[in-house]
């Protein structure tokens, strides 16, 4: 098998490139045997086994014996310390599940399209099964799973894990999401609003690193915001802080799901945007509008730009109220990049009292579609850290099995 994969440069840089290629493949597939790695990367099995040995020594990957087609093989996965946490994001039209470790690396993930107004019971079932499947994919046992973070596109009362405003997610209102999910996986489950989690992730790992006061604007099927004040997430008493989708922008507008009239969501929510292009483009999906706008379709671009403008006006009021240093724009619509962000920025700045000390910046998020699920992982990790004291954590690093037993003991105590 001769494939042209020449890498320019010295022996050392070649080795460097091969190492990166192997780590990339392991990340992409979750777990691979050495033979599969050779196939996936195009490198020889000898090279693979040398580099895998190096990477194992450096603590980047782990190997464990397994069998493929009846033969013994070595399965290579990303190294994990102290067990795993799961992040689950329920979107309006998709479900995303990811496993992460204490190094905040996503070790496996899977996405799944969902129907409109998807049901809570099927949704939770599917999410639980996907978590278990991802654990298998990376060769981990259920014991290694510590906590699960869940992101919902609705305001959540984190104390009870319930949605705190009725009608926003049809059929999800009366259920204790946290408790119900935790029954399925026998692990603690923390539920939060997707914009809050996006804010958390962008603040800790993305565009908001190093800033103390950040507003994360999530422009998606509906609109929301997550607020970081003084480095901490501000959820409000019942979790409805940052619900900018329900700020009134048109007193004579349509009735919103929340029961009020002319909310921002009735103007820039997905159904409003799809209605705008129906007569000119036919029945599109929100994904279509975004993809077409990126491909230069003027009509679809206009729809997104106008949405950016409307959102920007509301963001300006948030900026006037909270005086953040930074506004980060995320959510599905942000995949359109500056088509959305430029008009949003312009409007947000136009209606803001600009200070001379640190004028607010409006930027595109760095984590893209991963922000919410990364936030769910971050939240899950933080809650695990709270459950154990610092000394325990350091002691555990030496022996992850002991760590597991210890955490189990801690869990049963409370």
């Amino acid at each position: 098998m001769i494939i042209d994969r020449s890498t320019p440069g010295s022996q050392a840089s070649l080795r460097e490139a091969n190492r990166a290629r192997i780590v990339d493949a392991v990340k992409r597939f979750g777990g691979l045997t050495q033979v599969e790695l050779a196939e996936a990367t195009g490198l020889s099995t000898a090279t693979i086994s040398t580099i895998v040995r190096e990477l194992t020594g450096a603590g980047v990957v782990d190997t464990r014996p397994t069998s493929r087609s009846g033969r013994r093989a070595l399965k290579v996965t990303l190294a994990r310390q102290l067990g795993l946490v799961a992040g689950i994001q329920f979107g309006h039209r998709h479900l995303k599940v990811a496993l992460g470790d204490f190094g905040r690396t996503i070790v496996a993930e899977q996405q799944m399209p969902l129907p409109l107004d998807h049901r809570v019971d099927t949704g939770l079932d599917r999410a639980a099964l996907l978590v278990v499947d991802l654990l298998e994919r990376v060769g981990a046992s259920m014991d290694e799973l510590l906590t699960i973070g869940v992101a919902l596109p609705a305001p959540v009362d984190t104390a009870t894990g319930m949605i705190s405003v009725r009608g926003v997610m049809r059929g999800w209102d009366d259920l204790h999401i946290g408790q119900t999910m935790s029954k399925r996986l026998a692990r603690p489950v923390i539920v939060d609003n997707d914009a809050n989690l996006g804010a958390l992730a962008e603040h800790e790992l993305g565009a908001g690193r190093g800033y103390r006061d950040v507003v994360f604007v999530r422009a998606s099927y509906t609109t929301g915001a997550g607020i970081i004040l003084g480095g901490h997430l501000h959820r409000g008493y019942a979790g409805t802080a940052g619900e900018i989708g329900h700020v009134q922008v048109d007193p004579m507008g349509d009735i919103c799901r929340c029961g009020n009239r002319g909310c921002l969501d009735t103007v820039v929510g997905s159904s409003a945007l799809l209605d705008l292009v129906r007569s000119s483009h036919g029945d599109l999906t929100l994904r279509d509008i975004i993809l077409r706008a990126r491909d230069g379709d003027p009509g679809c671009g206009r729809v997104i730009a106008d949405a950016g403008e409307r959102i920007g006006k509301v963001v300006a009021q948030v900026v006037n109220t909270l005086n953040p240093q930074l506004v980060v724009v995320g959510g599905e619509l942000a995949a359109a990049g500056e088509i959305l962000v430029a008009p949003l920025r312009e409007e947000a700045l136009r209606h803001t009292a600009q200070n001379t000390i640190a004028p607010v910046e409006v930027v595109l998020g760095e984590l893209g579609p991963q922000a919410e699920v990364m936030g769910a992982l971050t939240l899950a990790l933080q809650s695990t850290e709270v459950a154990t004291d610092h000394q325990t954590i350091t002691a555990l690093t030496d022996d992850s099995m002991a760590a597991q037993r210890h955490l189990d003991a801690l869990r049963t105590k409370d």
Partner: protein
Amino acid sequence: MSDPTSTPALSLRGINKSYGAVRALSEVTFTVHPHEVVAVVGDNAAGKSTLAKVIAGVITPDSGIIESEGVPVTIPTPASAHALGIATVFQELALCDNLDVVSNLFLGRELRRGRHMDEAAMEEIARKILRDLTSRIPSVRSLLSSLSGGQRQSVAIARTLLGNPRIVVLDEPTASLSVSQTAEVLTHIERLRDLGHAVVLISHNMNDVRSVADRIEVLRHGRNNGSFPGHSTSHEEIIAAITGAGDYSMPAH
């Protein structure tokens, strides 16, 4: 996305098919546009698979008009379906367990260089197609017998993509798959649509259908019983059309 102005990739009108005294299809109408996923749902024996077989050229209708991009055609054999750019993945995937992924993809249409098979080129193409589908099959040299149900389905879908078809017909692609495998196949269907293919999805899983379909066509006792926008129709409305509780037998178009 049914762009009202575009010509359908495939359009069937007044299709009839009887097996002896049994009318499997009766005056059935069906269209699919490029870049659109149309689901065909219905109870068992509603005529879903018969319709798929008509499109795939496996059976010939007794009467009716078939148009491909506005041009009247007949589809007497699977080969003529293939020539029209119609690729079908049946429930029985028709893959060889004892061959690897590349051999399965190219079975019967191997690339040659001189007197030898061009393995390197076939591997490259196989990798590219699987990557386009965002498939998670690590090695294109894995034997089929070592793959999961979802991965086999990816191979079967990838196989149809080799001929660069305009229309891909999937017959119950998620039946007997686990949740994560279903997730993968549904993601593939989204990808097929993004790549501009017209996709016909035969299924009776409402969840899957409502997740990816732009339009849902209900068949009941071999007749059309309603056409619904996939992104805004409730589960109950579709079930009502399938059971016959809701009568939508006059097609809206």
